[in-house]
């Protein structure tokens, strides 16, 4: 067993209203960043877990996303490659 670090990106599902992203976009424009077209705000989760190898670690995290970390109704998730921690 070795320790791995896996990063997960969770973003609001496309097409669903993203009030948080909209508020940040508008705020940035008010601050003078007029070229900002769009903003999406999601979650960034880092999981440190023991596993036999990177693949097993990634599989486990994918399972965690489906079960807990992401809300399948409103969110999409993306898992980065595991790195030794």
């Amino acid at each position, binding site marked *: 067993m070795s320790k791995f670090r896996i990063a997960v990106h969770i973003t609001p599902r496309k097409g669903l209203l993203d009030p*948080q992203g909209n*508020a*940040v976009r508008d705020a940035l424009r008010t601050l003078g960043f007029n070229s900002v077209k769009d903003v999406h*705000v999601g979650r960034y989760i880092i999981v440190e877990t023991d596993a036999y190898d990177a693949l097993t670690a990634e599989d486990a995290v994918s399972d965690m996303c489906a079960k807990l970390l992401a809300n399948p109704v409103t969110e999409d998730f993306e898992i980065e490659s595991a790195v030794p921690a």
Partner: protein
Amino acid sequence: MKFGIVTFPGSNCDYDAFQAVTDILGEEATYLWHKDHDLQGSDVIILPGGFSYGDYLRAGAIARFSPIMREVAAHAKAGGPVLGICNGFQIACEAGLLPGALMRNSHLQFVSAEVRVRVENSDTMFTNLYDRGEILRMPVAHGDGRYVAPPGVLEELEAEGRVVFRYADADGGINADANPNGSERNIAGIISEAGNVLGMMPHPERACSPLLGSNDGVRLLESILARVAA
């Protein structure tokens, strides 16, 4: 004396602050629109509670860039009193009028309850009508009320008597059970270095009538009156 109460988009305790000032204190109050650049001659500024800009991103993060905040900062710099309540406290921290930050409650839930706070410093322009060590009852209602500050800053606040209110139990004990949000050192309210900006999570403006459970907040407003009028 005139109180200016800032209405940010999403403020929802501006009305309560207005009522407390006009109804209970019998002083003049005016709403200040976030897009304006005019404090309308206000002597005291209240940054009220609520969810400015929905509290999206971080509580208070967007509101601090509102046009009116430039004048509020100038007013504070000139020694004018500023009272930040709940979301107003968060905005004041984001704007750098007060040190530290307010993070998600440690239990991760919104908390609406009556709490007790102990008056730690009764020698400020906001607390001069309280006794030091006195226990006050006030409502809290927030999701992001956990006060944090870098270690050095905490020591400095303590040393300078700038921790004004601390969550306490009925007997004045400072402990985890009395702490509704996990704030460091049970801190419920702090004051700026110059002593003219107070930020606090509990709502004094909701504690202004025995009918509603407590009028312990009245003397906070009266303290300002006493000091500024003097």
